[in-house]
């Protein structure tokens, strides 16, 4: 709920740093229950309640998916759930791949979003993007998903250029007992998860969980089942320990392994110049996060987080093994009565081992990189309860472009108890990726002059600039007794966006000679985007809620480079100009639920991805307090539809109409 996220904090290192200053409680809560009300009223307390500000009143474009939204969607993965968030654009590439963005620039390698799972960054430094298939957990353990559109690097960390997605799971205290969920359907053929939560002594709560699924294929362009089914298994734990009255320690981790069928394309030097074949991605990973939070007073809190993450991904295009270690510290304090200051330090190091393929070549396949960051943000109550000004600065140093500054200024003005306006001016920087620094990718083959085939290649020779954004945003919110309304508008000015500069063709005298036409990854593209995002909720009656969201987006990009506009029109058009999402959640009596979602998107990619609408319906029945059953029909309008256009050679498949039967049993 807090706009001030404390994503980052820990335990092993924490214990070392602080020595063993665990404080014994003077009184246990059980002792206190023997006090009379009069005595309790005389007790002086050390308040440990954090100043929690509802995200809904922060000076930023935010949207929160609650666990209830998630449960009643009938959707079964984190990327699919983001369809419910106004302002997000979700396009399915194939069974296990998604292109997801906010405010434009969508693609297989969309690179302007920061995604966190309980404080652990999951964007890949390989291409600054997210492997969404690896972002998974039992959806029933998610407390909420917070989505912040617009740059959020100051508080949230590197790569938060166009938005932040923050998946937050429930504390182990809130997931006690056993819970089983099993579902079966036409796309999700079989999915099962089990969780058990317990306590150990005083103050330690834990849960352990496992999840596995077998997903069937989507449809190929001809309507036949495509070769993109996948299976994944995952198991994990979380422990929350109240070490003392002021110390909270959380340790969590998980391990996953998956096999994803896909259709990949190899280049050929003779017509038809590419060959599709059945490929498989082997995806494995494990991670552990430790977080230690100490609350000194209501105005002061420190937290330390450490995480280690290892992922491995092998497919035709590339093999990639990566280890990340991240340490992050934050401290919040109130230096004056009207100030609320947060500062922090972060350090991340990564080691990536690459396995080259026929298409992708890195001269150096053993890569190490690091990132150092420091930030401070002060929230100043200019007029208490009325006008708040936030000033923040993040300084980040990466090994490619050196020091980057990311300042932000935000103001929130409460017009009345019912409505408020906010405005923000923010700078965002995308951390350069390995791909731009050392990759050589053969993208396509085509017939060339004098009968010689031409291979188009993209070279990442490194650029001296990081992609930069200045974002200007304004927003207005109002709530009445049953209606709430939220609108935000933005203008984004981008500089040094990735562009491609053609360089000298090279004749390659192999057994079958060809000409390689390289394009160097450059940073000559610049331009602007603007848009409006609106959402509203109406509690029409007790047990019946309607929500609606609308998104408008325009991008205009130009290049200073010598190349002619090389598909930049496509980049401008990666996301639809208009999107509408409407949901209705209705409870009928104590046992029944009838829920619906309609999602309509305009065309994108210059009309080559046509406009489409999807309708999902769900009926839920609470058989007993412990057993619930639901049936969902997804994508009901059409047998199948395309959501994405390929820029590489991979096959794009199409989501099909599907049904899903879900059962959960808890005790």
């Amino acid at each position, binding site marked *: 709920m807090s706009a001030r996220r404390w994503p980052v904090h820990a335990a092993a290192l924490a214990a070392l740093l602080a020595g063993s200053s665990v404080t*014994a409680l003077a009184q246990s*809560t059980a002792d*206190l*229950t023997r006090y009379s009300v009069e005595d*309790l009223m005389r*007790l002086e*307390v050390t308040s440990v309640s954090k100043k929690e500000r509802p995200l809904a009143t922060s000076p930023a474009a935010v949207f929160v998916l609650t666990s209830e939204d998630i449960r009643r969607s009938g959707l079964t993965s984190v990327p699919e759930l983001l369809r419910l968030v106004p302002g997000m654009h979700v396009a399915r590439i194939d069974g296990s791949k998604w292109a997801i963005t906010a405010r434009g620039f969508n693609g297989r390698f969309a690179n302007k979003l920061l995604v966190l799972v309980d404080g652990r960054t999951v964007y890949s430094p390989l291409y600054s993007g997210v492997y969404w298939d690896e972002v998974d957990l039992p959806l029933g353990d998610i*407390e909420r998903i917070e989505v912040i559109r617009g740059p959020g690097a100051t508080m949230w960390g590197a790569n938060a250029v166009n938005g932040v997605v923050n998946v937050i799971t429930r504390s182990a205290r809130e997931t006690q007992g056993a819970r089983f969920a099993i579902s079966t359907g036409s796309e999700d053929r079989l999915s099962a998860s089990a969780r058990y939560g317990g306590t150990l002594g005083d103050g330690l709560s834990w849960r352990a969980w496992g999840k596995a699924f077998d997903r069937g294929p989507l449809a190929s362009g001809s309507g036949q089942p495509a070769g993109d089914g996948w299976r994944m298994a995952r198991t994990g734990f979380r422990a929350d320990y*109240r070490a003392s009255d002021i110390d909270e320690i959380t340790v969590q981790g998980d391990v996953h392994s998956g096999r994803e069928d896909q259709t990949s394309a190899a280049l050929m030097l003779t017509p038809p110049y590419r060959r599709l074949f059945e490929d498989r991605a082997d995806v494995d990973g494990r991670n552990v996060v430790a977080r230690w939070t100490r609350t000194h007073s209501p105005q002061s809190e420190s937290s330390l987080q450490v995480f280690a993450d290892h992922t491995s991904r092998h497919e035709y295009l590339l093999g990639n093994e990566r280890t990340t270690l991240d340490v992050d510290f934050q401290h919040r304090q109130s230096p004056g009565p009207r100030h609320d200051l947060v500062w922090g330090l972060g350090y991340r190091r990564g080691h990536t081992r690459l396995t080259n393929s026929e298409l992708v070549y890195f001269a150096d396949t053993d890569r190490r990189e690091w990132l150092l960051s420091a930030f401070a943000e002060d929230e100043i109550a200019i007029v208490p309860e009325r006008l708040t000004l936030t000033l923040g600065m993040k300084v980040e140093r990466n090994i490619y472009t050196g020091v980057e500054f990311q300042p932000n200024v935000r103001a929130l003005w409460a017009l009345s108890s019912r409505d408020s306006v906010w405005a923000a001016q923010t700078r965002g920087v995308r951390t350069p990726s390995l791909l731009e620094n050392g990759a050589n990718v053969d993208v396509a083959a085509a017939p060339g002059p004098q009968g010689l085939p031409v291979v188009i290649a993209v070279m990442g020779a490194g650029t001296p600039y990081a992609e930069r954004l200045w974002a200007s945003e304004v927003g207005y919110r109002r709530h009445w007794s049953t209606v709430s309304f939220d609108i935000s508008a933005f203008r984004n000015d981008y500089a040094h966006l990735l562009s491609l500069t053609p360089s000298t063709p090279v004749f390659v005298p192999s057994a079958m000679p060809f000409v390689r036409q390289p394009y160097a990854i450059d940073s000559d593209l610049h331009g602007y985007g603007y848009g409006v995002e609106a959402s509203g909720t109406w509690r029409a009656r*007790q047990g019946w809620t309607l929500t609606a969201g609308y998104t408008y987006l325009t991008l205009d990009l130009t290049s200073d480079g010598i190349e002619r506009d090389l598909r930049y029109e496509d980049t401008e058009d990666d996301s639809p100009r208009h999107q509408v999402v409407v949901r209705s959640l209705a409870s009928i009596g104590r046992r029944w639920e009838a829920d619906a979602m309609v999602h309509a998107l305009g065309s994108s990619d210059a009309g080559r991805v046509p406009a489409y609408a999807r309708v999902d319906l769900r009926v839920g029945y609470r058989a007993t307090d412990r057993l619930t059953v639901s049936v969902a029909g997804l994508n009901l309008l059409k047998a199948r539809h395309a959501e994405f256009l390929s820029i590489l050679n991979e096959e794009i498949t199409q989501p099909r109409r599907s049904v899903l039967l879900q059962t959960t049993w808890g005790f």
Partner: protein
Amino acid sequence: MAAALVCASLATPVRAGAPSEHQVKAAFLYNFANFIAWPEGALGPPGTPLRVCVVGADPFGGALDDAFRDQVVQGRHVEIGRGPTLAAVGHCHILFLPQSEAVRWPDLLKELRGAPTLTVGDGPPLVRLGGMVNFVIEAKRVRFEINRGAAEDAGLRISSKLLALARVVESD
């Protein structure tokens, strides 16, 4: 220098002795449970537990569980319920509304209207919005306010002892 800052910040000595705000609030809830009379039938058949719930993020840490562990209140054991929504927590005899949910308070109260559930808010405006009890912090001490009308509308009787210690207010 950075490491020194981190160490200094984390090693700040803790003032031992005083209990935390939410420990005391949990003890208050235990007292409330004993000083409220629920309408006939509202507690269910003998042997069913008294349910004390938190809707939304739980600010108690484990203090609420500690306060009611192994206690018998109104002849019943106590079950703690937690959940993001009223539907998820199920029926409760005492419902605690944390500060973090303050924007939802009006909606939650509306949904609960007439139910024999003692609503307790973690901050001042709740009783003015039609809630029954809320805490206030005054001079580092936990005090509470009661909206007697709201409780009576739901058929709850609050003992005169509790009323005498509270600040009694009306809905806006």
